[in-house]
C-alpha cells in the first residue's frame, strides 16, 4: 500500500522537531510537511508534573496501525509519530506527529487524523500531579466524537 515504513518512537526522551521534519522533507516528491507538537500546559492549581503511563508492546502496535491507516488513505511519502512517557514538567513536549506529501491537503488531513486516533486509540494515560495531589486526566467525549468525522469517507 505504501513505499515507506512509518517512524514510530515511544520514549522517555525529548525529541528534535526540526530534525524530524527535515528527515521527512527528504525525497524528490515531498512538497509539504505538516507537524503537530503537543506540550504540557500548566493547570490552574499549579501543575508540578504530568505522569504519562503506557502499555509497552500494545502502544507501538496501535501507533503503527494508525499510521498504516493514514498511509492507506492519503498519498503520503512519510509519517513520524513520537510519544513520550514518564514524568514531564510543564512546558515539556509530550508528543509529535508529522506527515509528508506532495499535497498540502493530504498532509494536513493525515496529521489531523493521526492526532484524533492517537488521542483515543493509543494506550497512553495522563496523570496530573499538583501540590494538592494527583489526578488521572479524564478522557473527553469530544475526543471520541472527533473520530466520527473520519468514518464517512471510508478507508
Amino acid at each position, binding site marked *: 500500500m505504501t513505499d515507506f515504513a512509518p517512524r514510530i518512537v515511544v520514549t522517555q526522551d525529548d525529541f528534535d522537531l526540526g530534525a524530524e521534519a527535515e528527515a521527512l522533507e527528504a525525497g524528490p516528491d515531498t512538497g509539504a510537511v505538516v507537524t503537530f507538537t503537543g506540550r504540557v500546559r500548566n493547570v490552574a492549581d499549579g501543575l508540578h508534573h504530568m505522569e504519562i*503511563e503506557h*502499555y509497552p508492546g*500494545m502502544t507501538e502496535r496501535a501507533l503503527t496501525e494508525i499510521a498504516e491507516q493514514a498511509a492507506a488513505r492519503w498519498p503520503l511519502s512519510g509519517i513520524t509519530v513520537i510519544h513520550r512517557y514518564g514524568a514531564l514538567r510543564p512546558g515539556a513536549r*509530550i508528543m509529535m506527529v508529522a506527515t509528508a506529501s506532495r499535497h498540502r491537503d493530504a498532509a494536513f488531513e493525515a496529521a489531523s487524523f493521526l492526532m484524533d486516533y492517537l488521542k*483515543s486509540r493509543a*494506550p*497512553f*494515560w*495522563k496523570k496530573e500531579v499538583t501540590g494538592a495531589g494527583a489526578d488521572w486526566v479524564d*478522557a473527553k467525549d469530544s475526543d471520541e466524537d472527533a473520530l466520527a468525522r473520519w468514518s464517512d469517507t471510508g478507508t
Partner: protein
Amino acid sequence: MTLQVLYFAWLRERIGLGRELVETNATTIADLVEELRAREDRYAAAFADMTTVRAALDQELVPLETPLGSAREVAFFPPMTGG
C-alpha cells in the same frame, strides 16, 4: 487456562498491581471481570463502573463481550488520554 492480566492507570492503582497470572475458566472478558470482582474488594472497586473500563485482548482493543478464545494477555484500563 492461564492468562496474563494487566492493569493500567487508576485500575492498576486500585487493584494494587500492574500484572498478574490468572487461572480462569471464563469464556469472555466480561466473565473474567465477574470472576475478578468476586475475589476481593479492590477488584470490585476497580470494576465498579464498567462504562469507564476498556479492554485489550493480546494488545488489540476489543469490546468487553469478546470471547477470550486462545488469548494469552488481557489488559484493563480507562479510556485513553494520550496526545
